[in-house]
């Protein structure tokens, strides 16, 4: 904290470095100083049981992936962690790093020379967004895999700053702005995550990418459903990643599901609502056409898994 205070905005925090170091090489991050928080004891908390979880921000992604308690109590979280990049990255990358992952864009995550050739972009060194040059905002994409799952699990985040500590819903630190994807202020550090008990909720994460390793999501959907004893959906959370600058709740689809049992019809209706809502831009791999359709398919598949219906419905004869 003192180091951060001393060097101000010339300094950046680094835990695993799997997000920051490529950005430094591309010169989209140009800190004079890097403050390592990898070994801070305050970030190493790790308590998991049926009564909930408190996970330090320094928790390695590989631990989330493999820890038997996480796998038992929050299997969707373990799965989402296991789908991040490659084992080497998961071995050093942290939960806090995934929560604070910089937004991504294929006009932005490029070398200095490449960005110079295109005249730079709004997220770094230019007033113009290359994705939508006429607009006044940055469209870089929120690309974390664990975050939609944590929001679906109704997790809270612990944020510390000096001696101040605040706890707020994880969802609340994000905003739809590629430039400033979180509301965290300078000097605030994500200390950890608190996840409520999973009782009654079934949570599923679905990720689409072109390769089965390395790749960030081109669409990711986390769905969490609590049904009452008669099978009526009492609560639904659907969170999309990689289709906006923040983890976006699919509230229209959630509303459609609540108050009725999960059926083929309600699942298709939710899929349609997600399809209408998801507005990917042309700044990742894949195409808008396909990613928009994948958003629908992934939410339908997640819901089918939860409802224990057959995984796919053959649309094409």
């Amino acid at each position, binding site marked *: 904290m003192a180091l951060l205070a001393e060097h101000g905005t010339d300094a950046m925090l680094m835990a695993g470095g799997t997000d920051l170091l490529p950005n430094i090489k591309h010169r989209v991050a140009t800190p004079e100083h890097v403050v390592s928080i990898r070994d801070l004891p305050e970030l190493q908390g790790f308590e998991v049981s049926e009564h909930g979880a408190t996970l330090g921000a320094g928790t390695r992604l590989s631990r989330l992936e493999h820890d038997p308690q996480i796998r038992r109590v929050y299997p969707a979280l373990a799965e989402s962690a296991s789908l991040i990049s490659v084992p080497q990255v998961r071995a050093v990358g942290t939960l806090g790093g995934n929560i604070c992952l910089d937004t991504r864009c294929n006009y932005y995550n490029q070398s200095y020379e*490449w960005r110079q050739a*295109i005249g730079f972009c709004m997220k770094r060194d230019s007033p113009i967004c290359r994705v939508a040059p006429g607009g006044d905002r940055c469209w870089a994409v929120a690309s974390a895999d664990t975050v939609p799952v944590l929001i679906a699990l109704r997790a809270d985040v612990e944020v510390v700053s000096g001696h101040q500590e605040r706890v707020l819903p994880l969802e609340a630190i994000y905003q739809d702005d590629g430039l400033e994807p979180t509301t965290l202020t300078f000097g605030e550090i994500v200390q950890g995550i608190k996840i409520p008990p999973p009782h009654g909720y079934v949570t599923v994460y679905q990720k689409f990418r072109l390769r089965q390793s390395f*790749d960030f999501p081109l669409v990711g959907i986390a769905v969490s459903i609590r049904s009452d004893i008669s099978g009526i959906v009492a609560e639904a959370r659907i969170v999309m990643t990689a289709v906006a600058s923040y983890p976006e709740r699919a509230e229209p689809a959630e509303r459609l599901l609540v108050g009725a049992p999960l059926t083929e019809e309600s699942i298709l209706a939710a899929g349609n609502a997600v399809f209408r809502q998801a507005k990917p831009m042309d700044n990742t791999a894949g195409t808008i056409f396909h990613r928009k359709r994948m958003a629908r398919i992934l939410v339908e598949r997640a819901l089918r898994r939860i409802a224990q219906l057959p995984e796919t*419905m053959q649309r094409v004869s």
Partner: protein
Amino acid sequence: MSTDITEEPTGQAGDRPPGRRSFSVVGKRSRKYDWHAKLTGQAKYADDLSLPRMIYGRLLRSPHPHARLLRIDTRKAGALPGVFAILTGQDLPTKYGILPSSQDENALAIERVRYMGEPVAAVAAIDEWTAEEACRAIEVLYEPLPPVMSIDEALADETPKIHDWTRDRNIQKEVLLEFGDLEAGFAEADYIFEDEYFFEGNTHVPMENHAVVADWAANGHVTVWSSTQTPHYLHRELAKVLELPPSRIRVIVPPVGGGFGGKSEAFSHEIVAPVLSRLSGHPVKICLSREEVFYCHRGRHPVKMWIRTGVKGDGTITAMDFSSTLDGGAYGSYGIATTYYTGALNTLPYEVPRYRFRGRRVFTNKPPCGPKRGHGTVQPRFAIEAHLDRVAENLGLDPAAMRGHILVKPNTWTINHLRVTSCGLGDAIEAVIERSDWTRKHGRMRHGQGIGLACSVYLSGAGLPIYWNPMPHSGAQIKIDRGGGVTVYCGTSDIGQDSDSMLACVVAEELGVDLDAIHLVTGDTSLAPVDLGSYSSRVTFMAGNAARQAAAQLRARLMDVAAETLEVPTDRLAAAGGIIFDRQDTARQLPFDEAARLAEARFGTLGAVGSYTPPRLAGPYKGSGVGPSPAYSFTCAAAEVEVDTETGELRVRKIWVAHDLGRALNPTVCEGQIEGGVYMGWAEATIEEQVFRKGLHKQPSLLEYKIPAAQDTPDIDTVMIESDDPEGPFGAKEVGQGPLAPVIPAVTNAVYDAIGIRLTSTPITPDKILHVLEARRKRASAAV
């Protein structure tokens, strides 16, 4: 229509004993020659080299795809502390290019830049960081010009000219070849089919980025260590551009981390490094970044193709008319050869009695395209095999059986004067049919699942050198020391395909020693005789024959002294495992090292040279230089796929491949080459594409240029067909490139079998599949 060969094969393989013989080294599985160094990290790649006082170079590259280069001011950069030397285009005015007919590149651009990433200046500095800072301090004034980014734009009426000399728009080269009476052929046909295809460009992605170390010594001798497939051609280009006698230049090839065609010609960094060394008085190292490797490119051309085929009811081809337009990128590179290659091998592996080929290559403002594994034959093979799948379906024929029925026969000539010797493709097709359970699966799997099959052909080395000369294509020198050690000197460049072990295997077999007795000096233009390079799958056939020829001479001397010592006639002697022995009385033995000492006493120092020149095979027409090869490899592949009709995702579950490689010298390495080729073909079929946006490479990184990983890779079932080529070393033909080509159409045909729609462009992405499925659904509902 094929002609029987009446003359004896004219290759120099020489003393083949009749019939199948047993081998002591050939055909045995063994480790790669350099396995230990590579597995333990001790292998010194170009980037691992460090010389005393070495400094670092870097290239400044154009940010514009197309611009006039008005002014370069290097004063600020030159004044930075730690900067030793700076070069711009004017310092290296001599143009060069791998083909004598395409001398169109400067090491650093002069007056004009033609692709984003083209080098315009070079800096040598105390470290890489300083060199990068210095590049940024160089002030370049550009006048941007409208870029030409596609075949259509290059052929538009009002297109800006990329090279002033092109006569018609941006067309670099047009070729027309016609064999036989095409009209008569189509008149004879029962059916005529016509299709169009597009093959998207892609690049090599070798594990090792290009790197060079150059040392211009005070005595004027220049040594260049470079990760190159073609040290001999680099040697020539350096002599030309540096304006030095070649005798003062030495090119050394350290272990190379893959090439696939992407390191087969001289690159800017290889040319500027020695000059920076001369100016600074220090050795200079330049390692390219991964992004720069994408700008070097020389990879697979995007190609538009059109094909028209006349067939009889049983599939027999009566005529084929084929045309291709290649998107060449900004410079010539190998492109004229590539253009010919999109036509040259289309008369194989099926009998094509009348054939016309029209090809042209256009310039665009993109990194130059060149040779990638299967050089220019992969794109037309995709088109032809997808086309024939449709032909077979329309004729009501099984596509595998139809192919088997129309195959070329061994020992024949094609209509365009290609000589076929051994051909094991019939066996390959049968193997794939059987192992893939083709007959039970094709056309019978449930919707969304399918199987497809295709065949292909490739060269065992180009029959002609890249620059005209009457000298051998490969030379080898062998010496035997008094301890029985055998050292082989050969200019081959081992780029991971294991040409080193191939040399060791051939020589060990010929001399009857164990592999351990062989020492190799390769990839060095001063220490070893010329080999033209690791391209066109030529090394096993050509360097292998050269080494065998040298070894055979030494074997004769050793047998002479052994016959005398053992008192046995030479024709009764055999050699294996370091022992020369009497075949009739195997207890009569002479150890190899003792024979070597006796032979040295008798004949003097034990050394011999061998060389290989391919037989003259080119036909009597212009353009006949591309296509002839002393032998062709043949491949059949089948792919089983599953298409998720909801998401459009395509999963290739298994690929069966059978490759006629003549003989597997080292089966383990040959299987590795086949599997590598299959992997690369499958990747090109399903995911890889080199695409551009706003004049820039869209994804010059390993994260975003999607080269698939282990989890994505399908099971591969590999069969090696040994057709025992009459001229190959111990019957061997190529294995490094051929197995790639049939995989792409096999996957395409399998997708058709799965969903009933023919995709006509690569790669087959989920996006494309969903598009065609949605279009069909809309048509179906409109029809209701």
